[in-house]
Protein backbone atom coordinates (compact mmCIF):
# COMPACT_ATOMS: atom_id res chain seq x y z
CA UNK A 1 0.00 0.00 0.00
CA UNK A 2 2.92 2.31 0.70
CA UNK A 3 3.20 3.32 -2.95
CA UNK A 4 -0.25 4.97 -2.98
CA UNK A 5 -0.11 8.31 -1.33
CA UNK A 6 -3.42 9.65 -0.13
CA UNK A 7 -4.35 13.29 0.10
CA UNK A 8 -5.59 12.54 3.59
CA UNK A 9 -5.55 9.62 5.97
CA UNK A 10 -8.25 10.04 8.56
CA UNK A 11 -7.86 8.18 11.84
CA UNK A 12 -11.25 7.30 13.33
CA UNK A 13 -14.65 6.83 11.68
CA UNK A 14 -16.74 8.75 14.22
CA UNK A 15 -18.83 11.70 13.02
CA UNK A 16 -15.76 13.98 12.77
CA UNK A 17 -13.68 11.57 10.69
CA UNK A 18 -16.51 10.39 8.44
CA UNK A 19 -17.59 13.96 7.71
CA UNK A 20 -14.03 14.96 6.79
CA UNK A 21 -13.75 11.89 4.55
CA UNK A 22 -17.13 12.58 2.95
CA UNK A 23 -16.36 16.22 2.12
CA UNK A 24 -12.91 15.42 0.73
CA UNK A 25 -14.04 12.41 -1.28
CA UNK A 26 -16.96 14.29 -2.73
CA UNK A 27 -14.50 16.80 -4.16
CA UNK A 28 -12.57 13.95 -5.73
CA UNK A 29 -9.66 13.64 -3.32
CA UNK A 30 -8.03 10.33 -2.43
CA UNK A 31 -8.87 9.61 1.18
CA UNK A 32 -8.44 6.67 3.48
CA UNK A 33 -10.65 6.47 6.56
CA UNK A 34 -9.27 4.03 9.15
CA UNK A 35 -11.34 2.62 12.01
CA UNK A 36 -10.22 0.16 14.67
CA UNK A 37 -13.71 -1.25 15.26
CA UNK A 38 -15.15 -4.02 13.13
CA UNK A 39 -17.62 -1.43 11.81
CA UNK A 40 -17.71 2.33 12.14
CA UNK A 41 -19.72 2.99 15.31
CA UNK A 42 -19.03 -0.33 17.00
CA UNK A 43 -16.73 1.41 19.51
CA UNK A 44 -18.83 4.49 20.05
CA UNK A 45 -21.52 5.55 22.48
CA UNK A 46 -22.98 8.87 23.56
CA UNK A 47 -25.97 10.12 25.52
CA UNK A 48 -28.27 10.57 23.07
CA UNK A 49 -29.14 13.21 20.70
CA UNK A 50 -27.67 15.11 17.80
CA UNK A 51 -28.61 18.67 16.92
CA UNK A 52 -29.34 18.70 13.20
CA UNK A 53 -27.98 22.03 11.98
CA UNK A 54 -24.39 20.96 11.24
CA UNK A 55 -25.12 17.79 9.27
CA UNK A 56 -28.03 19.36 7.42
CA UNK A 57 -25.64 21.85 5.84
CA UNK A 58 -23.45 19.03 4.56
CA UNK A 59 -26.06 16.42 3.68
CA UNK A 60 -29.31 18.36 3.19
CA UNK A 61 -32.41 16.53 4.47
CA UNK A 62 -30.22 13.78 5.88
CA UNK A 63 -33.18 12.61 7.98
CA UNK A 64 -34.75 11.13 4.87
CA UNK A 65 -32.06 8.44 4.77
CA UNK A 66 -30.10 8.39 8.05
CA UNK A 67 -30.92 5.82 10.74
CA UNK A 68 -32.44 8.04 13.44
CA UNK A 69 -34.64 7.27 16.42
CA UNK A 70 -37.00 10.07 17.43
CA UNK A 71 -37.13 13.82 16.76
CA UNK A 72 -36.95 15.44 20.20
CA UNK A 73 -40.15 17.31 21.03
CA UNK A 74 -39.83 17.52 24.79
CA UNK A 75 -36.94 18.77 26.93
CA UNK A 76 -37.05 18.04 30.64
CA UNK A 77 -34.68 19.11 33.37
CA UNK A 78 -35.11 17.44 36.73
CA UNK A 79 -33.51 18.40 40.01
CA UNK A 80 -33.37 15.43 42.31
CA UNK A 81 -32.98 15.22 46.04
CA UNK A 82 -33.98 12.14 47.98
CA UNK A 83 -37.77 12.00 48.13
CA UNK A 84 -38.26 15.27 46.29
CA UNK A 85 -37.75 16.36 42.73
CA UNK A 86 -38.62 19.36 40.59
CA UNK A 87 -38.88 19.22 36.83
CA UNK A 88 -39.13 21.82 34.13
CA UNK A 89 -40.55 20.51 30.91
CA UNK A 90 -40.73 22.29 27.59
CA UNK A 91 -42.38 20.99 24.46
CA UNK A 92 -42.06 22.57 21.01
CA UNK A 93 -43.66 20.74 18.12
CA UNK A 94 -41.89 22.86 15.52
CA UNK A 95 -38.78 20.90 16.56
CA UNK A 96 -40.38 17.77 15.11
CA UNK A 97 -40.93 19.15 11.64
CA UNK A 98 -38.32 19.79 8.94
CA UNK A 99 -35.66 21.09 9.31
CA UNK A 100 -35.89 19.17 12.60
CA UNK A 101 -34.10 20.53 15.67
CA UNK A 102 -32.53 17.33 17.05
CA UNK A 103 -32.85 13.56 16.86
CA UNK A 104 -32.07 10.82 19.31
CA UNK A 105 -29.99 8.12 17.67
CA UNK A 106 -27.87 5.04 18.28
CA UNK A 107 -24.24 5.33 17.33
CA UNK A 108 -23.61 1.82 16.02
CA UNK A 109 -26.13 2.43 13.23
CA UNK A 110 -25.65 6.13 12.72
CA UNK A 111 -21.85 6.14 12.53
CA UNK A 112 -21.94 3.18 10.13
CA UNK A 113 -24.35 5.11 7.90
CA UNK A 114 -22.23 8.28 7.89
CA UNK A 115 -19.10 6.28 7.03
CA UNK A 116 -21.03 4.59 4.22
CA UNK A 117 -21.84 8.04 2.84
CA UNK A 118 -18.10 8.77 2.75
CA UNK A 119 -17.50 5.44 1.05
CA UNK A 120 -20.21 6.13 -1.55
CA UNK A 121 -18.56 9.48 -2.24
CA UNK A 122 -15.34 7.63 -3.02
CA UNK A 123 -13.43 7.36 0.25
CA UNK A 124 -11.68 4.12 1.08
CA UNK A 125 -12.89 2.84 4.44
CA UNK A 126 -10.69 0.33 6.28
CA UNK A 127 -12.07 -1.22 9.47
CA UNK A 128 -10.47 -3.58 12.00
CA UNK A 129 -7.29 -1.52 11.86
CA UNK A 130 -5.82 0.26 14.84
CA UNK A 131 -3.44 3.06 13.93
CA UNK A 132 -0.42 2.64 16.19
CA UNK A 133 1.80 5.52 15.30
CA UNK A 134 2.48 8.45 13.03
CA UNK A 135 5.21 8.44 10.42
CA UNK A 136 7.26 11.55 10.95
CA UNK A 137 9.92 12.77 8.56
CA UNK A 138 12.07 15.79 9.49
CA UNK A 139 9.46 16.95 11.98
CA UNK A 140 6.47 16.63 9.69
CA UNK A 141 3.76 14.01 9.71
CA UNK A 142 3.85 12.03 6.47
CA UNK A 143 1.61 9.06 7.23
CA UNK A 144 0.62 6.40 9.70
CA UNK A 145 1.74 3.01 10.90
CA UNK A 146 -0.68 0.22 11.77
CA UNK A 147 1.10 -2.95 12.82
CA UNK A 148 3.51 -3.74 9.99
CA UNK A 149 1.74 -1.50 7.47
CA UNK A 150 2.83 2.00 6.68
CA UNK A 151 0.67 4.36 4.67
CA UNK A 152 1.52 7.79 3.33
CA UNK A 153 -0.55 10.94 2.99
CA UNK A 154 -0.18 14.66 2.51
CA UNK A 155 -2.16 15.17 5.70
CA UNK A 156 -3.26 12.99 8.60
CA UNK A 157 -6.53 14.02 10.24
CA UNK A 158 -6.69 12.94 13.88
CA UNK A 159 -10.37 12.10 14.42
CA UNK A 160 -9.68 9.50 17.08
CA UNK A 161 -11.95 10.80 19.80
CA UNK A 162 -11.62 11.79 23.44
CA UNK A 163 -8.65 9.53 24.21
CA UNK A 164 -6.72 10.97 21.29
CA UNK A 165 -3.43 9.16 21.20
CA UNK A 166 -2.65 10.50 17.73
CA UNK A 167 -2.71 14.19 18.70
CA UNK A 168 -0.46 13.33 21.65
CA UNK A 169 1.97 11.44 19.43
CA UNK A 170 2.16 14.43 17.12
CA UNK A 171 3.12 16.55 20.11
CA UNK A 172 0.03 18.71 19.63
CA UNK A 173 -1.84 17.62 22.77
CA UNK A 174 -0.87 16.69 26.27
CA UNK A 175 -2.47 14.04 28.43
CA UNK A 176 -5.55 15.66 29.98
CA UNK A 177 -5.95 16.19 33.71
CA UNK A 178 -8.68 14.19 35.47
CA UNK A 179 -10.91 17.24 36.04
CA UNK A 180 -10.88 17.94 32.30
CA UNK A 181 -12.81 14.79 31.42
CA UNK A 182 -15.88 12.97 32.62
CA UNK A 183 -16.91 9.37 32.33
CA UNK A 184 -20.32 8.56 30.92
CA UNK A 185 -22.04 5.23 31.47
CA UNK A 186 -25.29 4.21 29.87
CA UNK A 187 -27.80 1.40 29.67
CA UNK A 188 -30.01 0.78 26.68
CA UNK A 189 -33.35 -0.26 28.15
CA UNK A 190 -35.83 -1.79 25.74
CA UNK A 191 -39.52 -0.96 26.02
CA UNK A 192 -42.46 -0.98 23.61
CA UNK A 193 -42.65 2.28 21.62
CA UNK A 194 -46.19 3.11 22.86
CA UNK A 195 -45.09 2.66 26.47
CA UNK A 196 -42.28 5.15 25.96
CA UNK A 197 -44.57 7.66 24.25
CA UNK A 198 -47.14 7.37 27.03
CA UNK A 199 -44.64 7.77 29.85
CA UNK A 200 -43.26 10.96 28.38
CA UNK A 201 -46.57 12.27 26.97
CA UNK A 202 -45.29 12.16 23.43
CA UNK A 203 -47.33 12.17 20.28
CA UNK A 204 -46.48 9.27 17.96
CA UNK A 205 -42.78 8.87 17.36
CA UNK A 206 -41.79 12.17 19.00
CA UNK A 207 -38.96 11.94 21.51
CA UNK A 208 -37.90 13.33 24.86
CA UNK A 209 -34.58 14.33 26.36
CA UNK A 210 -34.33 14.48 30.13
CA UNK A 211 -31.36 15.65 32.19
CA UNK A 212 -31.06 15.05 35.94
CA UNK A 213 -29.01 16.99 38.47
CA UNK A 214 -28.43 16.33 42.16
CA UNK A 215 -28.90 13.06 44.01
CA UNK A 216 -28.20 11.00 40.86
CA UNK A 217 -24.48 11.73 41.24
CA UNK A 218 -24.71 11.98 45.06
CA UNK A 219 -23.69 15.60 44.74
CA UNK A 220 -20.65 14.93 42.55
CA UNK A 221 -20.04 17.09 39.50
CA UNK A 222 -22.05 15.50 36.73
CA UNK A 223 -25.59 14.44 36.06
CA UNK A 224 -27.98 11.88 34.68
CA UNK A 225 -29.64 11.65 31.28
CA UNK A 226 -32.47 9.84 29.58
CA UNK A 227 -33.09 9.95 25.85
CA UNK A 228 -36.01 8.11 24.28
CA UNK A 229 -35.27 6.01 21.23
CA UNK A 230 -37.91 4.23 19.13
CA UNK A 231 -38.11 1.14 21.27
CA UNK A 232 -35.60 1.78 24.00
CA UNK A 233 -34.50 4.48 26.38
CA UNK A 234 -30.87 5.48 26.83
CA UNK A 235 -30.39 6.02 30.55
CA UNK A 236 -27.04 7.07 31.92
CA UNK A 237 -24.82 9.09 34.16
CA UNK A 238 -21.89 11.38 33.61
CA UNK A 239 -19.39 12.01 36.42
CA UNK A 240 -16.27 14.16 36.34
CA UNK A 241 -13.12 12.01 36.57
CA UNK A 242 -11.58 14.10 39.35
CA UNK A 243 -14.66 13.28 41.43
CA UNK A 244 -14.27 9.60 40.60
CA UNK A 245 -10.67 9.80 41.76
CA UNK A 246 -11.94 10.54 45.28
CA UNK A 247 -13.16 6.97 45.62
CA UNK A 248 -16.54 7.60 47.13
CA UNK A 249 -18.70 5.46 44.91
CA UNK A 250 -18.16 2.76 42.37
CA UNK A 251 -19.50 3.90 39.05
CA UNK A 252 -21.57 0.77 38.29
CA UNK A 253 -23.18 1.03 41.75
CA UNK A 254 -23.97 4.68 41.18
CA UNK A 255 -25.62 3.74 37.89
CA UNK A 256 -27.80 1.09 39.53
CA UNK A 257 -28.72 3.51 42.33
CA UNK A 258 -29.82 6.01 39.71
CA UNK A 259 -31.76 3.42 37.74
CA UNK A 260 -33.64 2.26 40.82
CA UNK A 261 -34.20 5.76 42.24
CA UNK A 262 -37.96 6.08 42.83
CA UNK A 263 -38.17 9.16 40.60
CA UNK A 264 -36.41 7.39 37.74
CA UNK A 265 -37.42 3.74 37.97
CA UNK A 266 -41.04 4.27 36.80
CA UNK A 267 -39.72 5.73 33.55
CA UNK A 268 -38.02 2.47 32.61
CA UNK A 269 -40.15 0.01 34.59
CA UNK A 270 -40.47 -3.36 32.88
CA UNK A 271 -37.66 -2.62 30.45
CA UNK A 272 -34.93 -5.06 29.51
CA UNK A 273 -31.30 -3.97 29.56
CA UNK A 274 -29.86 -4.61 26.11
CA UNK A 275 -26.46 -2.95 26.45
CA UNK A 276 -24.13 -1.34 28.97
CA UNK A 277 -21.55 1.12 27.67
CA UNK A 278 -19.03 3.72 28.80
CA UNK A 279 -17.01 6.53 27.23
CA UNK A 280 -15.05 9.64 28.16
CA UNK A 281 -16.29 13.16 27.45
CA UNK A 282 -13.91 16.09 27.16
CA UNK A 283 -15.32 18.67 29.57
CA UNK A 284 -12.89 21.54 29.84
CA UNK A 285 -13.87 23.43 26.70
CA UNK A 286 -11.28 25.84 25.35
CA UNK A 287 -8.88 25.07 28.20
CA UNK A 288 -8.18 21.63 26.76
CA UNK A 289 -8.18 22.44 23.07
CA UNK A 290 -4.76 21.28 21.80
CA UNK A 291 -2.73 22.86 19.03
CA UNK A 292 -5.21 22.27 16.26
CA UNK A 293 -2.74 21.62 13.46
CA UNK A 294 0.91 20.97 12.77
CA UNK A 295 3.07 20.07 9.79
CA UNK A 296 0.99 17.52 7.92
CA UNK A 297 -1.65 17.02 10.61
CA UNK A 298 -5.02 18.44 11.72
CA UNK A 299 -7.02 17.55 14.86
CA UNK A 300 -10.85 17.39 14.82
CA UNK A 301 -13.86 16.51 17.00
CA UNK A 302 -13.43 15.15 20.52
CA UNK A 303 -9.70 14.73 19.87
CA UNK A 304 -9.62 18.52 19.74
CA UNK A 305 -11.79 18.85 22.86
CA UNK A 306 -14.73 20.26 20.88
CA UNK A 307 -17.56 19.54 23.33
CA UNK A 308 -19.86 22.00 25.01
CA UNK A 309 -21.60 21.06 28.24
CA UNK A 310 -23.83 23.78 29.61
CA UNK A 311 -25.52 21.60 32.18
CA UNK A 312 -28.89 22.00 30.48
CA UNK A 313 -27.57 20.84 27.13
CA UNK A 314 -24.67 18.79 25.78
CA UNK A 315 -23.22 19.21 22.32
CA UNK A 316 -20.40 17.22 20.74
CA UNK A 317 -21.79 15.63 17.58
CA UNK A 318 -22.47 18.92 15.80
CA UNK A 319 -19.00 20.18 16.75
CA UNK A 320 -17.43 16.96 15.51
CA UNK A 321 -19.26 17.20 12.18
CA UNK A 322 -18.53 20.88 11.62
CA UNK A 323 -14.86 20.52 12.59
CA UNK A 324 -14.53 17.52 10.26
CA UNK A 325 -15.91 19.67 7.48
CA UNK A 326 -13.58 22.56 8.40
CA UNK A 327 -10.57 20.23 8.34
CA UNK A 328 -11.56 18.95 4.90
CA UNK A 329 -11.83 22.52 3.62
CA UNK A 330 -8.45 23.39 5.13
CA UNK A 331 -6.84 20.36 3.49
CA UNK A 332 -8.30 21.37 0.13
CA UNK A 333 -7.02 24.92 0.55
CA UNK A 334 -3.58 23.61 1.50
CA UNK A 335 -3.60 21.31 -1.51
CA UNK A 336 -4.42 24.11 -3.91
CA UNK A 337 -1.36 25.95 -2.56
CA UNK A 338 0.73 22.78 -2.51
CA UNK A 339 1.62 23.59 1.09
CA UNK A 340 0.73 21.09 3.80
CA UNK A 341 2.98 22.66 6.38
CA UNK A 342 1.72 24.13 9.62
CA UNK A 343 1.43 27.43 7.86
CA UNK A 344 -0.43 26.01 4.90
CA UNK A 345 -2.95 24.30 7.19
CA UNK A 346 -3.34 27.38 9.39
CA UNK A 347 -6.54 28.25 7.57
CA UNK A 348 -8.21 25.49 9.62
CA UNK A 349 -8.37 27.77 12.65
CA UNK A 350 -9.78 30.57 10.56
CA UNK A 351 -12.56 28.35 9.20
CA UNK A 352 -13.37 27.14 12.70
CA UNK A 353 -13.57 30.71 13.96
CA UNK A 354 -15.94 31.68 11.19
CA UNK A 355 -18.10 28.64 11.94
CA UNK A 356 -19.97 28.08 15.19
CA UNK A 357 -17.27 25.73 16.50
CA UNK A 358 -14.77 28.19 17.97
CA UNK A 359 -17.36 30.97 18.14
CA UNK A 360 -19.58 29.00 20.54
CA UNK A 361 -16.70 27.54 22.57
CA UNK A 362 -15.34 31.05 23.04
CA UNK A 363 -18.74 32.45 23.87
CA UNK A 364 -19.23 29.82 26.60
CA UNK A 365 -15.59 29.75 27.67
CA UNK A 366 -16.49 30.15 31.35
CA UNK A 367 -19.11 27.41 31.36
CA UNK A 368 -16.62 24.70 32.47
CA UNK A 369 -15.57 26.84 35.41
CA UNK A 370 -19.22 27.37 36.34
CA UNK A 371 -19.77 23.61 36.36
CA UNK A 372 -16.97 23.11 38.86
CA UNK A 373 -19.10 24.76 41.54
CA UNK A 374 -20.13 21.97 43.95
CA UNK A 375 -23.24 23.91 45.04
CA UNK A 376 -24.79 23.20 41.65
CA UNK A 377 -24.92 19.50 42.36
CA UNK A 378 -26.01 19.51 45.98
CA UNK A 379 -27.17 22.77 47.52
CA UNK A 380 -29.26 24.09 44.65
CA UNK A 381 -31.11 20.90 43.79
CA UNK A 382 -31.91 20.57 47.49
CA UNK A 383 -32.99 24.18 47.78
CA UNK A 384 -35.18 24.06 44.69
CA UNK A 385 -36.88 20.81 45.58
CA UNK A 386 -37.49 21.88 49.17
CA UNK A 387 -38.98 25.17 48.06
CA UNK A 388 -41.21 23.57 45.46
CA UNK A 389 -42.35 20.96 47.90
CA UNK A 390 -43.24 23.65 50.44
CA UNK A 391 -45.13 25.53 47.75
CA UNK A 392 -47.42 22.58 47.13
CA UNK A 393 -47.75 21.31 50.70
CA UNK A 394 -50.98 21.89 52.64
CA UNK A 395 -50.84 20.46 56.13
CA UNK A 396 -52.73 22.85 58.38
CA UNK A 397 -49.69 24.83 59.57
CA UNK A 398 -49.83 28.66 59.50
CA UNK A 399 -49.50 30.13 55.98
CA UNK A 400 -46.48 32.15 54.86
CA UNK A 401 -46.01 34.29 51.77
CA UNK A 402 -43.85 33.16 48.88
CA UNK A 403 -40.95 35.46 49.66
CA UNK A 404 -40.78 34.19 53.20
CA UNK A 405 -40.87 30.63 51.93
CA UNK A 406 -37.94 31.30 49.69
CA UNK A 407 -35.97 33.10 52.37
CA UNK A 408 -36.64 30.34 54.85
CA UNK A 409 -35.32 27.72 52.46
CA UNK A 410 -32.25 29.80 51.69
CA UNK A 411 -31.62 30.24 55.38
CA UNK A 412 -31.98 26.53 56.03
CA UNK A 413 -29.60 25.72 53.19
CA UNK A 414 -26.98 27.91 54.95
CA UNK A 415 -26.09 29.27 51.59
CA UNK A 416 -25.92 33.01 52.23
CA UNK A 417 -27.61 35.53 49.99
CA UNK A 418 -24.36 36.96 48.62
CA UNK A 419 -23.15 33.58 47.45
CA UNK A 420 -26.50 32.89 45.89
CA UNK A 421 -26.33 36.24 44.11
CA UNK A 422 -22.84 35.54 42.78
CA UNK A 423 -23.76 32.08 41.54
CA UNK A 424 -26.94 33.45 40.01
CA UNK A 425 -25.08 36.24 38.26
CA UNK A 426 -22.47 33.82 36.92
CA UNK A 427 -25.12 31.43 35.71
CA UNK A 428 -26.93 34.21 33.93
CA UNK A 429 -23.83 35.69 32.30
CA UNK A 430 -21.56 32.67 31.73
CA UNK A 431 -24.08 30.17 30.41
Amino acid at each position, binding site marked *: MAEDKFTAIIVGAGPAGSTAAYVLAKEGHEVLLIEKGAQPGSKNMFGGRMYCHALNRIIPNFWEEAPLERPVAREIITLLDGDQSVSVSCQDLTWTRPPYHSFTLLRAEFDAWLASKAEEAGAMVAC*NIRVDDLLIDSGRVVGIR*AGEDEMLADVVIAADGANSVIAQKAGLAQMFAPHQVATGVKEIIELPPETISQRFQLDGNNGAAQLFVGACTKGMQGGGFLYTNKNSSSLGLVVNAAELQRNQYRLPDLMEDFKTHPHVAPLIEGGRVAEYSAHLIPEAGLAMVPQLYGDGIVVVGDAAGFVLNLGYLVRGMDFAIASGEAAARAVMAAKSQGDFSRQGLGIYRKILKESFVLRDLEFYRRAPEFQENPRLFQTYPRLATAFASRLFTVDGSPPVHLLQKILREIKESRLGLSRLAIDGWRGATWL
Partner: protein
Amino acid sequence: MKRERLTIEQLLGVDKFVVDDQEAHIRLNKEHCESCETKPCTFACPAGLFAVKDGAISFDHAGCLECGTCRAVCPKAGTALIWCYPRGGFGIHYRYG
Protein backbone atom coordinates in the same frame (compact mmCIF):
# COMPACT_ATOMS: atom_id res chain seq x y z
CA MET B 1 -41.46 -0.99 45.56
CA LYS B 2 -38.25 -2.95 45.21
CA ARG B 3 -36.51 -2.52 41.88
CA GLU B 4 -34.10 -4.86 40.26
CA ARG B 5 -30.43 -3.91 40.41
CA LEU B 6 -28.04 -5.61 38.07
CA THR B 7 -24.55 -6.66 39.06
CA ILE B 8 -21.66 -5.56 36.91
CA GLU B 9 -21.30 -9.15 35.72
CA GLN B 10 -24.92 -9.10 34.55
CA LEU B 11 -24.42 -5.76 32.82
CA LEU B 12 -21.29 -6.89 31.00
CA GLY B 13 -23.06 -10.15 30.23
CA VAL B 14 -25.43 -8.40 27.80
CA ASP B 15 -22.54 -6.81 25.89
CA LYS B 16 -20.77 -8.29 22.91
CA PHE B 17 -17.00 -8.68 23.19
CA VAL B 18 -14.39 -10.12 20.89
CA VAL B 19 -11.80 -10.95 23.52
CA ASP B 20 -8.16 -10.87 22.49
CA ASP B 21 -6.61 -13.89 24.16
CA GLN B 22 -3.15 -13.12 22.89
CA GLU B 23 -2.62 -9.54 23.78
CA ALA B 24 -3.85 -7.55 26.79
CA HIS B 25 -4.36 -3.94 25.74
CA ILE B 26 -4.06 -2.68 29.31
CA ARG B 27 -1.19 -3.93 31.42
CA LEU B 28 -0.37 -3.33 35.05
CA ASN B 29 3.10 -3.22 36.51
CA LYS B 30 1.84 -4.33 39.85
CA GLU B 31 4.97 -3.46 41.79
CA HIS B 32 4.14 0.19 41.12
CA CYS B 33 0.58 -0.32 42.31
CA GLU B 34 1.76 -1.43 45.74
CA SER B 35 2.67 2.10 46.72
CA CYS B 36 -0.54 3.55 45.27
CA GLU B 37 -2.53 4.34 48.38
CA THR B 38 -5.99 5.14 47.13
CA LYS B 39 -6.17 2.88 44.06
CA PRO B 40 -8.78 5.02 42.31
CA CYS B 41 -9.01 2.54 39.42
CA THR B 42 -10.93 0.19 41.72
CA PHE B 43 -13.74 2.71 42.09
CA ALA B 44 -13.71 4.57 38.80
CA CYS B 45 -13.67 1.76 36.24
CA PRO B 46 -17.24 1.51 34.92
CA ALA B 47 -16.72 -2.18 34.24
CA GLY B 48 -15.39 -2.87 37.74
CA LEU B 49 -12.35 -4.66 36.36
CA PHE B 50 -9.88 -3.64 39.06
CA ALA B 51 -10.08 -5.20 42.51
CA VAL B 52 -7.86 -5.56 45.53
CA LYS B 53 -7.38 -9.17 46.53
CA ASP B 54 -5.22 -10.04 49.54
CA GLY B 55 -3.73 -6.56 49.42
CA ALA B 56 -2.67 -6.83 45.78
CA ILE B 57 -4.38 -5.35 42.77
CA SER B 58 -6.01 -7.66 40.27
CA PHE B 59 -7.18 -6.77 36.79
CA ASP B 60 -8.82 -8.50 33.87
CA HIS B 61 -8.82 -6.89 30.43
CA ALA B 62 -11.77 -8.94 29.16
CA GLY B 63 -14.87 -6.84 29.81
CA CYS B 64 -13.10 -3.55 29.18
CA LEU B 65 -15.37 -0.91 27.66
CA GLU B 66 -12.33 1.02 26.37
CA CYS B 67 -13.41 4.28 27.96
CA GLY B 68 -10.00 5.37 29.23
CA THR B 69 -11.20 6.28 32.72
CA CYS B 70 -8.48 4.22 34.42
CA ARG B 71 -5.86 6.06 32.39
CA ALA B 72 -7.41 9.38 33.43
CA VAL B 73 -7.58 8.65 37.17
CA CYS B 74 -4.44 6.54 37.69
CA PRO B 75 -1.79 8.67 39.42
CA LYS B 76 0.89 6.52 37.80
CA ALA B 77 -0.49 6.16 34.28
CA GLY B 78 2.39 5.34 31.98
CA THR B 79 4.34 3.43 34.61
CA ALA B 80 1.90 1.37 36.69
CA LEU B 81 -0.79 1.33 34.04
CA ILE B 82 0.13 0.92 30.38
CA TRP B 83 -2.96 1.73 28.39
CA CYS B 84 -3.84 1.42 24.74
CA TYR B 85 -6.83 0.38 22.66
CA PRO B 86 -7.19 -3.30 21.76
CA ARG B 87 -5.87 -4.47 18.43
CA GLY B 88 -8.12 -3.73 15.46
CA GLY B 89 -11.33 -5.77 15.52
CA PHE B 90 -10.94 -6.88 19.15
CA GLY B 91 -12.63 -5.70 22.32
CA ILE B 92 -16.07 -4.23 22.93
CA HIS B 93 -18.49 -4.29 20.02
CA TYR B 94 -21.46 -2.02 20.62
CA ARG B 95 -24.62 -3.04 18.80
CA TYR B 96 -26.53 0.06 19.91
CA GLY B 97 -24.13 2.69 21.29
